[in-house]
């Protein structure tokens, strides 16, 4: 590992002003805590779908506020650090990085809440078979969040890159589920309602993967300093030829 890729992108030595170090540490802790919450939101939302568990869904929807609150705290804390410490170089990247990551985590938690809202709808109607794909996709996305948070805590760029590459798998799963759901809907129009909910759920999970990827890019920036320059991996734009794409729920 080169000297520039050590740990959290800063040097091992400490600041002359100790309180500054404490504050940066506190910031990392806030991000980790927020990440844990967001990860948990996605997990319970998927539980709600898989087990047709309304309580889990409601809990997810209600907990979303906590993540929003934490994001707000991170924002305030960063503004304070920027004003009082006038950070430079690695420290500056670390604070800007935290702001960006917090915003991605907030979105991830939102997608969790979206999934939970869809679960409440889905639980009122007869289950359909393609639900089986949701836990697999959800697990992949959850692992991406978990690993990207680990890579943040450890300042491990390699691990972040690994997460970045895994997004392709989530995209592919989404694409194949999309096809499968289309077939279902064509076979029997009575499936359309359930399939639509599932499709949105899958799309939301796919978006979670995208945000984990953003976080991986931010980690690269805050550790290495330069922009991310790996060839853009194949996206579903290149591989999917079938019809319309949909946007994840916006709420």
């Amino acid at each position, binding site marked *: 590992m080169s*000297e520039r890729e050590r740990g959290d992108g800063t040097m091992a*030595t400490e*600041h*002359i002003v100790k309180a500054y170090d404490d504050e940066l540490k506190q910031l990392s802790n806030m991000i980790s805590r927020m990440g844990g919450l967001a990860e948990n939101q996605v997990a319970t939302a998927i539980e709600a779908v898989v087990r047709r568990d309304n309580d889990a869904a409601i809990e997810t929807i209600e907990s979303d506020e906590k993540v929003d609150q934490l994001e707000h705290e991170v924002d305030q804390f960063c503004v304070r650090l920027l004003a009082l410490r006038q950070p*430079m170089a*690695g420290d500056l*990247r670390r604070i800007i990085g935290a702001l960006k990551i917090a915003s991605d985590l907030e979105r991830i938690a939102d997608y969790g809440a979206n999934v939970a809202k869809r679960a409440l709808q889905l639980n009122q109607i007869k289950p359909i078979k393609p639900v089986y794909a949701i836990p697999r996709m959800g697990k992949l996305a959850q692992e991406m969040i978990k690993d990207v948070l680990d890579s943040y805590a450890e300042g491990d760029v390699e691990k972040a890159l690994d997460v970045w590459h895994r997004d392709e798998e989530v995209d592919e799963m989404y694409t194949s589920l999309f096809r499968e759901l289309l077939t279902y809907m064509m076979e029997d129009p009575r499936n359309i309602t359930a399939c639509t909910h599932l499709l949105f759920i899958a799309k939301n999970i796919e978006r979670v993967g995208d945000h984990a990827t953003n976080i991986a890019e931010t980690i690269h920036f805050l550790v290495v*300093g330069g922009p991310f320059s790996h060839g853009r991996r194949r996206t579903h734009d290149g591989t999917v030829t079938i019809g319309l794409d949909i946007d994840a729920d916006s709420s």
Partner: protein
Amino acid sequence: MANTQLQDADPRDGAVSSRPAARRTKMAARDVNVFYGDTHALKGVDLDVYEHEVTAFIGPSGCGKSTLLRCLNRMNDMIEGCRVSGEMTLDGRDIYSRDIDVVQLRAEIGMVFQKPNPFPKSIYDNVAYGPRIHGLARTKSDLDEIVLTSLEKTGLLDEVHDRLDQPGTGLSGGQQQRLCIARAIAVSPKVILMDEPCSALDPIATARIEELIDELRENYTIVIVTHNMQQAARVSQRTAFFHLGSLIEMDETEQVFTSPKNEHTQGYITGRYG
């Protein structure tokens, strides 16, 4: 739909980004070594100062910033026991060559110091001093013109126009420093060297000087030594970091303060030096 088309980024946009236009080297140092007796104060320094840019020298106390600055207009000649080797050029001309007139050189390369040091003379005479000894004004009205434009350029004229005959030492610290800058530019230098010009000033006076530096850049080339990282970041286009007499890293200021390449630079500018 038409809108979306219009908003599409033109791929050529990137080419006209903030990248600086072709740069011209105003001053260059090649393998410069300086000794004060046995102290090796500068060790093989190579650097270029570009025309119409502000170059900042930063680094911990004693790293040799002032020493290098003084080499750039041969102020070190006056220091007993100081030996300078290597090459220094202004517009490609060797400033240590035998046929250089040092007094003339210092008119071309002016200097502003940490503590404002107006002469114990009137405001007018402070500014007129250089043009007089260099014979830049043939008539009294020529001289008036030089004095007034110099004061004008430093933004001081409005503040002192009705008391040009008062002593320069009676001005506030920030005004005195601007008077010293007016004195430096009165002889139409090519380069202005500034050694911590704001360290004795309050934030408002400092902001004034920084604004002035940015304006002066259009007509002059500026090198500034500063201990204030934010100031270096604000006023300069390029920054050089020195440590124990060596030039450690020199790059675009933006690069140095966001992603320095060297570990020592990073340590210093983030306040981890130790």
